[in-house]
């Protein structure tokens, strides 16, 4: 039997499932069902990816069901606690770490389970105090001279070993370049589920499972994912979305050194790290970002964006349209296929506000849009908008900021 089927006697031919299917796999062409004269939904099994959108769309009539044969996971009763990956490199913890600890401590309120952190690397003892100050109960640490900052293969292996030994119920990492490379490797080692780039985490009150919510289809839809039969339930968490953990007055946590786990040799060879010279590139950490889009019209005009960035002490961002046109390097791209940013102020100049761009910046504290089209979707998310020609508005803004008026 196929895992997805339509229960004809429940189907009213309402068309909601047809609209919900992103793969064009449903048509209303079946026999008359629950409503007279209305054809019922037929699922093209060739196109269907079993994504579940139609089941959700049909929750009122319950006419589409997906059945999965329950396959065996591990003995999940042995797992408890929430664990985070303490990502670090070049002498400091990644700025996403306090955020995932914050998320873990929120979940802790519902699970009443300890929060632990996995800390592996060379000289990582130095980060223990900071981690404990965020309210971590236990640090599972391997501090070893052979673990290089960029030896991701070794780190993944050690993280997998620690997870198998310590058995946390939940394991969270940052939605960073490293987090989104290391955690999938770990998940494939220990054969458990991993949800990428979550923007919301909560505990399902009836099942106590981790509800992992994330955008998909460029932020057009949100999906809530569960990992039912496998442990740990793993997720990466989008940077700059969760509130960082507040520091605790007197840290109570302790460090557990796992010296018995052998450190393998890395197959990767780190050569060097090259910091991007321009201060304007580090979008992820910037307080102010000035971004340019298609409305900039010409690569030369990015100088205007740079001027405003300088006047605001901010970084320069860009929409996909500007990057695809070759006006500015990809490292500046904000959006679904670029960087996710959450500055204090985001100034979008000549950016229409395609979903794919919004996905990367709508978490900003304050959004200012400058666009000549009063109906541009960017104005829907902007707190303040100026309808006008950016070639006039930006110079005016720069002038005022520079002159302090």
């Amino acid at each position: 039997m196929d895992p997805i089927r339509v229960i004809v006697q429940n189907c009213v031919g309402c068309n909601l499932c047809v609209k919900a299917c992103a793969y064009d796999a449903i048509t209303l062409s079946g026999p008359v069902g629950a409503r007279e004269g209305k054809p019922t939904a037929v699922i093209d099994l060739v196109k269907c990816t079993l994504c579940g959108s139609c089941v959700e769309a049909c929750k009122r009539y319950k006419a589409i069901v997906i059945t999965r044969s329950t396959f065996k996971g591990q003995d999940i009763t042995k797992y408890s606690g929430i664990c985070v990956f303490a990502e670090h490199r070049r002498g400091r913890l990644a700025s996403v770490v306090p955020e995932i600890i914050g998320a873990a401590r929120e979940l802790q309120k519902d699970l009443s389970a300890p929060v632990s952190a996995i800390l592996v690397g060379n000289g990582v003892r130095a980060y223990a105090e900071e981690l404990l100050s965020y309210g971590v109960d236990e640090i599972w640490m391997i501090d070893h001279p052979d673990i290089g900052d960029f030896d991701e293969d070794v780190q993944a292996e050690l993280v997998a070993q620690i997870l198998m030994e310590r058995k946390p119920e939940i394991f969270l990492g940052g939605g960073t370049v490293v987090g989104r490379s290391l955690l999938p490797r770990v998940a494939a080692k220990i054969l458990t589920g991993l949800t990428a780039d979550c923007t919301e985490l909560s505990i399902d009150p009836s099942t106590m499972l981790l509800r992992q919510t994330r955008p998909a289809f460029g932020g057009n839809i949100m999906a809530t994912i569960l990992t039912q039969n496998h442990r740990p339930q793993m997720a990466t968490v989008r940077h700059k979305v969760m509130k960082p953990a507040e520091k605790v007055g007197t840290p109570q946590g302790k460090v557990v050194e796992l010296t018995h786990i052998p450190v393998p040799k890395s197959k990767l060879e780190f050569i060097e790290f090259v910091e991007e010279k321009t201060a304007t590139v580090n979008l992820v950490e910037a307080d102010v970002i000035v971004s340019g889009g298609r409305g900039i019209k010409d690569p030369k005009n990015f100088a205007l964006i740079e001027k405003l960035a300088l006047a605001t002490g901010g970084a320069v961002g860009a929409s996909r349209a500007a990057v695809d046109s070759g006006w500015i390097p990809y490292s500046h791209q904000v959006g679904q296929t670029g960087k996710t940013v959450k500055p204090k102020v985001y100034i979008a100049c000549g950016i229409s506000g395609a979903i794919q761009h919004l996905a990367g910046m709508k978490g900003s504290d304050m959004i200012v849009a400058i666009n000549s089209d009063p109906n541009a979707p960017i104005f829907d998310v902007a707190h303040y908008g100026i309808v006008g020609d950016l070639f006039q508005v930006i110079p005016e803004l720069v002038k005022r900021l520079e002159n302090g008026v």
Partner: protein
Amino acid sequence: MKIIVCIKQVPDTTNVRINPETNTLVREGVQSIINPFDVYAIEESIRLKEKHGGAVTALTMGPPQAAEALREAIGLGADNAFLVSDRAFAGADTLATAFALACAIRHLGGADIILMGRQAIDGDTGQVGPGVAENLDISHITDIRKIEEIVDGRIVVERLLEEGYARIAARLPVVLTVVKEINTPRLPSLKGKLAAKKAEIPVLKAADIGAEVERLGLNGSPTQVMKIFTPPKPGGGKKFTGEPAETVGALLAELTAAGITIKGAH
């Protein structure tokens, strides 16, 4: 050099719009395309072949119509292509997908370099590359912006990270995921288009690649979708229209009133 490029056929999400009244996806006119990041992976694989010799095989897992994406890859210069397609693969999450692709790659005799885009634009996970590498027990490096050199089985790459890039070397075979910065993809040539038209695209089924059925598709996927919903429509704020001097003045007044300074340190 044997190169396999893994691609995915995806709905073109950049053209997906939300119907403001019903708050549902408007799918009309949305075409299936090769995942944009994978186009860069195809280009890079062709460039590697041009430089080092060898052959490029395009590989995808998907429904029968995904063969179209493979034809396009041949049009862009891939030598041959295989479609991993079986009802048993449906509903696969990234773990089951990575497992199936790794089985297919092993069935094809492996490769020196396996390339793919950093993520697909429908799922946006970027998890399949590392998963394939783990299943094949080889190294992987994500977010590659440049392949510097390949000498005596050692590859040197530049990996894009948040605050800069790292130069990293690895022994082949290796799985690499690429970012857009890596190249500028070419358009299909006339010769390529003809080859694409004529190409035979063998279909690999679960039994062909020796994959255990319980690790495939919905059954082999630890994660499951509980709920799908459209995000609430944002409200929009204050809009100023008029002469730049007025609108900029009004904006700055509002920001000041809200206690926000955007004036940089000079």
